[in-house]
């Protein structure tokens, strides 16, 4: 494989990992706000128990993502920097409020409610803005004057395609996080919270599927080149939808493994993740060779080969060093019965 192709694959991998983690993170913050007043179900406690130890780690992925863009594709970083000034700054401002108030809400107990509301609302807006980077890279909203690129905000925010992306980001954030929290509640033996999150998942699953179709529908009209490329992989897209239906089995059917429990949330989480993986692979492949259509391609934006080699080596070493840390972390917070089933 050419170096540039390896690099874009690594970048795509980071985007995918961040997308899944951020979904869980922002979604959990939102649910913790929604169920704030329903103390009996403990749905808020479950969301917080997941969120408290993980948000910092999730945040680091967004930094990793930005760093990966400029170290692998510096020329693209130049254009991104220029066109994303406004949306990027808004994301940063929301992110600052959301992270800070999330931490504060766990410390200043008496003011927990307003603090949770601020961080929950700021948090749910972020995925919608983050995903807007995708339609922006399709090129239709960028004006070029004297060779410099500028984002045309008016064009962006009057496009149905942009709203389809935003809608998809928000509904799938809520969908995936409710599945994950259902699974987490089950592991924690919090059956009331479990039922709440399963109900949310059942409602949100079909909605986010509709949103995905809306994206395809608007893409066909507005960005035919991507749409056509994606349709070349129609079998894969259909295959990915199968996983969506497997997720449905996990949601609507009684458990095969446990008597008297309805739903198999872990099956759904895994199936939905695989579905997203396949679908985003198809989307990413259709996007190539452009990073930003039509001027920036992976070849033209690629970094110096020496730098690429050095960065790639640090990826391998860094991963080898961090992996045990991630594993230990997972064991302590996702898989330790004592942590999951604590009382207060």
């Amino acid at each position, binding site marked *: 494989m050419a170096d540039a192709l390896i690099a874009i694959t690594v970048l795509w991998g980071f985007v995918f990992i961040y997308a899944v983690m951020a979904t869980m993170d922002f979604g959990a913050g939102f649910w913790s706000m929604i169920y704030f007043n329903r103390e009996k179900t403990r749905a808020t406690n479950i969301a917080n128990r997941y969120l408290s130890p993980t948000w*910092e780690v999730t*945040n680091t992925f967004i930094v*990793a993502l930005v760093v990966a863009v400029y170290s*692998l594709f510096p020329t693209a970083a130049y254009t991104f920097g220029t066109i994303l000034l406004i949306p990027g700054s808004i994301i*940063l401002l929301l992110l600052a409020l959301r992270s800070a108030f999330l931490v504060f809400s766990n410390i200043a107990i008496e003011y927990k409610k307003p603090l949770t509301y601020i961080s929950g609302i700021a948090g749910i807006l972020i995925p919608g803005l983050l995903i807007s980077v995708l339609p922006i890279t399709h090129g239709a909203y960028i004006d070029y004057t004297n060779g410099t690129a500028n984002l045309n905000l008016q064009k962006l925010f009057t496009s149905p395609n942009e709203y389809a992306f935003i809608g998809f980001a928000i509904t799938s954030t809520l969908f995936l996080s409710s599945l994950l929290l259902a699974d987490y509640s089950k592991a924690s033996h919090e059956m009331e919270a479990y039922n709440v999150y399963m109900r949310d998942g059942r409602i949100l699953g079909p909605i986010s599927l509709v949103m995905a179709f809306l994206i395809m529908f608007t893409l066909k009209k507005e960005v035919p080149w991507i749409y056509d490329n994606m349709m070349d992989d129609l079998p894969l897209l259909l295959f990915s939808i199968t996983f969506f239906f497997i997720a449905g089995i996990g949601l609507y059917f009684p458990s095969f493994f446990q008597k008297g429990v309805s739903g198999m949330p872990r099956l759904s989480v895994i199936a939905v993740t695989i579905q997203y993986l396949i679908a985003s692979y198809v989307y990413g492949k259709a996007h190539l060779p452009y990073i930003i259509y039509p001027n920036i391609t992976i070849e033209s934006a690629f970094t110096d080969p020496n730098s690429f080699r050095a960065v790639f080596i640090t990826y391998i070493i860094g991963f080898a060093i961090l992996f045990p840390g991630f594993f230990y972390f997972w064991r302590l917070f996702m898989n330790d019965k004592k942590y999951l089933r604590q009382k207060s």
Partner: protein
Amino acid sequence: MDDLLIARSLFGTTMAFHIIFATIGVGLPMMILAAELLYQKTKDVDYVVMAKRWTKTFAVLLGVGIPTGTIAGVQLSLLWPGFMEVIGRVMPLPFQIEIYAFFIEALFMSIYVYAAERIAPWMRITSLILVALGALGSAVLITNVHAFQGTPTGFRYENGQFLDIDPWAAFFNPSFFVTAIHVALSAYVVGAFVVGSVAAFKMMRNEYGSRIYKFHQKALMISLVLGGIFAFLTAINGHESAQYLHEYQPEKLAAAEGLFETQSHAPLAIGGFTDRETESVKWGIEVPWALSFLAGNSFDTVVVGLNDFPEELWPPLFIHTLFNVMVGIGSLLILISIAGIIWRKLLKKDRFPKFFLWILVLAGPMAVAAIEAGWIFACTGRQPWVIYRILSTAESATTATNLGILFILFIAVYVILGIAVVFVLLYFFRKNKEMDDIKRAEEKYVRLFSSNS
């Protein structure tokens, strides 16, 4: 204001805000570690209580340090795309490796706080060491980018092209070690004196000899001893930093000292203001020959003056004041800790005079001021370059206009976060008194670390 000036002010404001939390974020884990180790050695529960209370503080500060750092990292690309394009091509390694340091800090910080009661004591200490190393590593690595901006190496630059790129040579640029060590040591100075400030303040508020008074007195002594050692090392290493400026960025040193004429036996100007008209430092104290000696360890050293450079390449002259503030505070902090330690340990007095406690209360904010002055000196003193003699700040800036509104929004958010973080810390420690924690700790610290009220 034109857009370039706004971009510079916006980025400078972001950094000036982030650095408060970042520096304490490097210094505080060192203090927590010291307290944990003292606890293991003495089994005095006061030390574990200190560790817990400082950890809570650290966790709250992280809530601002991490998002503002994220802003800093992304804003670099948004405001200085030309700069980041070059960095991505030539100097990607520090940012890349820094990510791993962030991960280590984030993973083990959560483990130290949220799993404290479920893991073995040795694992707690290991987690804490990893948090401290992660924080130190991220500071050292980000500083390396700054070092590269002053002493760029690892490439050939011809006709606007970067050729023969060697990212490791860029990584180990000449001023990397000196600069990184200076930043690390000065962060420990800040960590120690900030803790000392709070302890001194609490000693005035509590009855002499009471349990709580003694608790804070122990904390104060740790901070005086560690702060003194690190302040001394910072000064020695700062001297070496100045020698590097003499060698690699002579116009910055000249502006820092207000020196216009190139000369041997150059005088050192302390205080005062650089006057462009008379080409001299007004109202300062001049120490004859001292600058030559500081720059090259001999009075014969020829120190280059500003007049050897075209005026449009001069750094702003006010950096003289910033340099003085940093060095002045550094020297003062050394004196304060020596005085405190002599009073307690040699003269065996067990009570500090009130005015001295007030000086100690001021020492923490002063250390933070030294950091601010040092950084603004270092970044503004590099002007008009963003990468010394390679890339100018103006060329690297974003082409976008109307940055004013963004500037206002970011400042508003920093004000909100700044007020909120002080409020939350005060709230937490008002609800969660020293005695509550000491009691918890004495009951074989059942859930000391995860206790919230």
